[in-house]
């Protein structure tokens, strides 16, 4: 538990903070005694309570409270304290510095003139997190929930409704603080109002849910950007959740951050097995569940849902693509890290193992894309196409750019309305009679998002069907990922 006690005061005068296991502290032990004799030095020892002497001027910082509160990073640290406040400090052993600092000559005769210190126990990785939790009163404002003594902590997370059905990592304070190391943002900063309850969600709450999801600290900035993007009016997370269609937020990460945090854009990129891919999308969904209160059967009314709603996140393979990236096609620079959130279903596979020309592959792709959601549904829904390296090779070999591909594909996706009219070929669904004789595009301008990912073998691509687009549905949103 956090302490609300004021930090322990330092005694006035000269104070040295030391630990016995530090060879430099051992080396200067005679100097410490000398300084006590000549200048009334007080010693604060971190480990051995009787180092350098069993004496009333040696105090044991047994819980490291003094060291932690006064920011001791190195031992020995020599401090000058005036009326309870630190006036100056010097770290390590340097005869000339110590002599100047104390105003006393002839310190440590026979010792080497200089030795670096050691790390303070209060910053030792074995203790630092625990001390931060104990002493920092940690600045974290989330309600503390105690599990009962007989409760299994993993079961307790489930029992409280915090899980999507898979195990979650218990968000103990030390883990949340560790995750917050991944961002420079203040834990209290509000990231977004999260639907459906439109609750203001702080960086801290995002971090708590990212812990649940299994994220590492370096994933947190991506999760924060994803929460920002999903909780916009354009993306309409409320609608994505509430619709009976089986869509969820699909995340595509672009830019340098993807490689830096080890995201997968290759083999099985849209599947399991990579921590960042698997946990970042899940963290966003847990924020929606826990902070926004969006739960299946509650506001989430999806008829089927999909496995992708646990979390669907991948990185674009930019290095292996001859094209500009998805993010660049949406107006971002290649050196910017971004996350694009798209309301999509699970991916389905499009297979073409015969096309050797870009024209053939494009025509075939258009036929598959035409069937997205329903072959008779035109313009109302967006889609995402993930081209594999093997399919991309057709376009690379022929020198097609992204723009050329989009133009050619759009032309192929311009359909004769007469084929799609309601009632044609005995199907009630379809375009209204007024569309007769016209050409109708499958997708609105910008309604087809194209990215490049996947393993190096396989003449397949993946199609992610979307949901109602525009002001009454959802538009894909891209946000920059910042530290």
């Amino acid at each position, binding site marked *: *538990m956090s302490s609300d006690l004021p930090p322990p005061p330092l005694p006035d005068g000269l104070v040295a903070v030391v630990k016995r296991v530090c060879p430099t502290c051992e080396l200067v032990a005679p100097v410490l005694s000398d300084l006590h004799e000549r200048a009334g030095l007080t010693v604060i020892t971190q480990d051995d309570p009787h180092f350098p002497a069993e004496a009333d001027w040696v105090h044991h910082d047994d819980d490291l409270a003094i060291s932690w509160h006064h920011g001791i990073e190195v031992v020995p640290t020599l401090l000058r304290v005036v009326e309870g406040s630190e006036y100056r400090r010097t770290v390590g052993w340097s005869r000339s510095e110590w002599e100047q600092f104390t105003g006393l000559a002839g310190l440590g005769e026979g010792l080497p003139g200089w030795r670096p210190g050691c790390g303070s126990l209060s910053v030792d990785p074995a203790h630092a997190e625990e001390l931060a939790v104990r002493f920092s009163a940690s600045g*974290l404002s*989330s*309600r*503390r*929930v*105690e*599990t*009962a*003594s*007989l*409760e299994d*902590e993993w079961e*307790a*997370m489930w*029992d*409280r409704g*915090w899980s999507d059905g898979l195990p979650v990592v*218990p*968000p*103990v*304070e030390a883990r*949340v603080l560790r995750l917050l190391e991944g961002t420079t943002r203040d834990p209290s900063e509000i990231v977004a109002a999260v639907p459906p*309850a439109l*609750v203001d969600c702080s960086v*801290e*709450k995002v971090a*708590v*849910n990212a812990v*649940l999801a299994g994220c590492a600290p370096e994933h947190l900035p991506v999760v924060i950007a994803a929460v920002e993007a999903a909780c916009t009016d354009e993306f309409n997370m409320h609608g994505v959740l509430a619709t009976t269609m089986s869509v969820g937020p699909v995340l595509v990460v672009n830019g340098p951050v993807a490689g830096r945090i080890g995201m997968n854009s290759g083999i099985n990129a849209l599947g399991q097995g990579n921590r960042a891919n698997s946990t970042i999308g899940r963290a966003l969904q*847990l924020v929606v569940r*826990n*902070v*926004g*209160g969006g739960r299946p059967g509650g506001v989430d009314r999806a008829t089927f849902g999909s496995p992708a709603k646990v979390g669907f996140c991948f990185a674009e393979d930019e290095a292996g693509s001859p094209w500009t990236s998805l993010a660049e096609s949406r107006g971002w620079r290649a050196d910017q890290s971004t996350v694009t959130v798209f309301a999509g279903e699970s991916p389905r596979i499009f297979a073409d193992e015969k096309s050797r020309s870009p024209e053939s592959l494009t025509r075939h792709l258009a036929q598959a894309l035409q069937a997205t959601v329903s072959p008779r549904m035109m313009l109302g829904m967006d889609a995402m196409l993930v081209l594999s390296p093997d399919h991309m090779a057709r376009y690379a070999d022929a020198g097609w750019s992204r723009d050329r591909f989009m133009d050619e594909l759009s032309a192929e996706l311009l359909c004769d309305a007469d084929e799609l009219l309601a009632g044609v070929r005995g199907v009630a669904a379809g375009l209204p009679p007024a569309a007769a004789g016209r050409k109708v595009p499958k997708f609105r301008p910008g309604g087809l998002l194209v990215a490049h990912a996947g393993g190096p073998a396989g003449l397949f691509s993946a199609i992610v069907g979307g949901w109602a687009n525009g002001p009454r549905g959802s538009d894909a949103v891209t946000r920059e990922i910042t530290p």
Partner: protein
Amino acid sequence: MTTVLDPTSETAPATRERARRPESLAGLTVGLLDISKPRGNVFLDRVSERLTGLGATVNRYAKPAFSKPAPVDLRHEIATTCDAVIEALAD
């Protein structure tokens, strides 16, 4: 015991809410769990009579040993077949 940070909007109480209490026992199935201490059965026999008189159906259960928690399958059976449960704790 573990202390964790609440991942929710904190609009619901931190303590788990108790199951809703039925307005009436008529027509409900009530489980009587005998923890297997001596003479608990005598007490529960009488409780059973009274509950039946109120229109409840009574299912009787017993723990294998009073010193240990009820086995998970027994708890599961009670939770899935009964609307309410009464556990006799005393000697």
